[in-house]
């Protein structure tokens, strides 16, 4: 039985003392992606192009298989995000990451929005996992 309730997007902003042109390449150049995000990457940075990443973890790698939706250097890049691993909670294409780069003096204001993540782990023999988390959250308040 599968239950999926999507959550509010994750929004993060970070100021980087580098120009947008410099920052943008860290999302589309595999040699640069591996310096901060993943262990290996294969990318075709245009709409519909592949965005594949390998993330290392205990017990083996997680395979991120996404696709670029928008590529507008040096301002905006959007790609889908999800994993092919059977124990991962987010399937390929299920969620979307939007990155916007705004010049800020000599630097960049980066804004990342990650949408459509599911509320909870999906496969559960009992079901009701989503309700449980909601109830626990109530108790914790």
């Amino acid at each position, binding site marked *: 039985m599968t239950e999926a309730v999507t959550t509010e997007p994750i929004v993060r902003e970070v100021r980087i003392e*580098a120009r947008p042109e410099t920052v943008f390449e860290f999302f589309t150049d595999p040699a640069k992606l591996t310096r901060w995000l993943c262990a290996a990457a294969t990318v075709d940075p245009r709409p519909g192009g592949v965005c594949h990443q390998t993330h290392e973890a205990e017990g083996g790698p997680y395979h991120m298989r996404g696709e670029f939706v928008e590529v507008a250097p040096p301002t905006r890049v959007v790609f889908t995000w999800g994993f092919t691993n059977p124990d991962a909670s987010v399937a390929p294409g299920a969620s979307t990451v939007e990155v916007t780069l705004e010049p800020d003096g000599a630097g960049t204001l*980066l804004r990342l929005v990650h949408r459509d993540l599911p509320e909870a782990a999906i496969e559960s023999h009992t079901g009701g996992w989503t309700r449980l988390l909601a109830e626990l959250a109530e108790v914790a308040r």
Partner: protein
Amino acid sequence: MQQAVEAIADPRRREILRLVRARELTAGAIASHFADVSRPAISQHLRVLREAGLLSERREGTRRLYRARPEGLGGVREFVAQLWDERLDALRIEAEREERKRENDRGRDN
């Protein structure tokens, strides 16, 4: 629903999750941490944790390896938010390093 609450209510099961939070272990290796718990009882605990979605099992040949699911009770969103916090910090460091390198290169060319 009660199943997941009961899964973490047991202190031994909480201890099992702690053992495999950062590394994978076989059932035997997990059992060896508990002097007073039988192997079948450990298997039962592992089954309860798996059915509650807190533990994942991976097979490697004849071995079964267990580890805590990274999302745990916090949920996917919290896990991914933390992931981005860490990764974006790394991005900032690398991008700033790259920018300084380019400035230095430009300076040398002048």
